[in-house]
């Protein structure tokens, strides 16, 4: 195996290399640190590289392995986190200029759990400022600049977990941690051609993570395969006295022949390549699953509800920033005013959105609860060009039903996997949305799908500079 083969290996293969002593954790860490230095700035993927911590944790992992102690499948495997998770070694910037010098003196629970699992923290990764809570409308919405997908640097990496998607896609880390309020794991997974697992609300503690929206925020892995997603999720899941929303729940046993609902009109209004790749995905899934076509998404005001809830909770979460007038320090012009717009959300609208949410949870359970998963394209297009406002992009393809808002409002898990390529050489993606706490049923389907396909193994051709 050459260095590229190693850098793009998934966690299972990396652990095999470490176990077979083909590479040490220190060597693997140095390989990734070098790639983060070289490619991180090109794609705007990184906020801070943690050289000292990474090498310290890697040396510990090697020492323990030499003495016969292996903590588990992540032992000695390097990773990165979205820069909204607290660590004491570097600023935790939330992607936003007003917080560039913010420091915490503890590790977020997710980071502490990964340390306990023997993983090696390499870097704090770039993100959309304040996780996109103030309504950004183009890709240049972080003080690190617009995240660029390694598949075509003129296009956006997706957000808000931009750096997490880029770093996995470009082989800069073994896996990464992202967060999702309403699409921030699955969208960059799609845009960067990686596998993202959004856990059920409450599966993973959010202690030490920036809060945007207490009733929607979730933390989960982005990796190079579905099997990686499950391994990382098992390491970070569970109750935490510091976050009362986090609970211990078992991971269900996958069924031998899963049942998958196919979203009605799933490809209506999609880019042709997205529709074609989705149909091909269904053909693969049909070889080992029972597919039930034309299952309708209940007709409820998902977008209005998610927008209202993010606005109201986001304005409260960042009230100090808004009231201080410092939101004008944000990078993206819509973000600079967005806090004021969010601040003006009437309380009754917020309550009505949460009332609608009660109806949504029931309706989605009634529609999809008997299936292991419901399938649809992650979004109806490939990712967006950098430099064009989102609301002016791909307007001819609007109207595609997607699962992002409904799934997030109901707190349901989702697995986004690359399923082909479309316009401009950009990846497309399929989303499998599960039932509450049914992540392992999704990853079982994902693992099987990825034994039949190789989209998740494709590597982008990286560049060492961007000519603008």
């Amino acid at each position, binding site marked *: 195996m050459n260095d590229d083969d190693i850098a793009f290996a998934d966690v299972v293969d990396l652990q095999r290399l470490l176990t077979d002593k083909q590479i040490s954790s220190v060597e693997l860490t140095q390989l990734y640190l070098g790639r983060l230095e070289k490619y991180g700035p090109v794609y705007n993927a990184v906020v801070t590289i943690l050289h000292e911590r990474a090498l310290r944790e890697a040396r510990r992992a090697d020492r323990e392995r030499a003495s016969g102690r292996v903590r588990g499948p992540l032992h000695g495997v390097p990773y990165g986190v979205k820069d909204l998770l607290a660590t004491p070694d570097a600023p935790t910037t939330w992607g936003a200029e007003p917080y560039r010098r913010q420091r915490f003196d503890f590790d977020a629970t997710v980071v502490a759990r990964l340390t306990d699992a023997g993983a090696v923290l390499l870097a704090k990764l770039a993100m959309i400022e304040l996780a996109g809570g103030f*309504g950004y409308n183009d890709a240049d919405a972080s003080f690190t600049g617009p995240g660029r997908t390694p598949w075509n640097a003129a296009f956006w990496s997706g957000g808000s977990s931009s750096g997490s998607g880029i770093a996995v896609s470009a082989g800069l880390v073994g896996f990464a941690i992202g967060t999702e309020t309403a699409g921030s794991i699955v969208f960059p997974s799609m845009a960067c051609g990686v596998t993202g697992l959004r856990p059920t609300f409450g599966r993973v503690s959010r202690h030490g993570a920036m809060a945007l929206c207490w009733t929607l925020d979730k933390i989960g892995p982005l990796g190079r395969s579905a099997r990686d997603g499950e391994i990382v999720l098992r390491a970070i899941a569970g109750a935490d006295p510091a976050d009362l929303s986090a609970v211990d729940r078992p991971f269900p046993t996958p069924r031998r022949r899963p049942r998958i609902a196919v979203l009605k009109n799933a490809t209506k209004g999609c880019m042709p390549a997205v529709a074609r790749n989705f149909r091909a995905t269904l053909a693969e899934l049909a070889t080992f699953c029972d597919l039930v076509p034309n299952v309708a998404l209940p007709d409820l005001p998902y977008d209005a509800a998610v927008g209202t809830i993010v606005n109201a909770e986001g304005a409260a979460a960042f009230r100090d920033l808004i009231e201080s*007038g410092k939101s004008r320090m944000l990078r993206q012009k819509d973000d600079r*005013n967005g806090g004021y717009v969010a601040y003006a959300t009437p309380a009754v609208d917020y309550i009505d959105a949460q009332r609608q949410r009660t109806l949504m949870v029931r309706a989605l359970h009634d529609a999809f609860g008997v299936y292991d998963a419901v399938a649809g394209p992650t979004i109806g297009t490939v990712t967006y060009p950098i430099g064009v406002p989102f609301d002016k992009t791909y307007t001819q393809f609007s109207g595609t039903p997607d699962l992002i808002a409904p799934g997030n409002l109901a707190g349901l898990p989702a697995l986004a996997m690359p399923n082909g390529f479309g316009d401009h050489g950009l990846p497309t993606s399929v989303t499998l949305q599960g039932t509450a706490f049914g992540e392992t049923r999704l990853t079982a389907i994902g693992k099987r799908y990825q034994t039949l396909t190789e989209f998740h193994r494709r590597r982008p051709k990286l560049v060492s500079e961007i000519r603008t």
Partner: protein
Amino acid sequence: MAATMRVRFDPALTADDLKTIAKAIDTNNVAAKRLNPTKKRLKNSDAPIVRFAVEGGER
């Protein structure tokens, strides 16, 4: 309401900023109407999803 933002929080907000903020508030108001549509009004019994739990007391 947009003008109140200037008075309360940020005197540097320009007339253009206020126009942008006012327009976005209007857009949100339109979206809010979809939260309780005339043809499918929320009922008095449709409770919000927010949970409240009491802590402490004798066990």
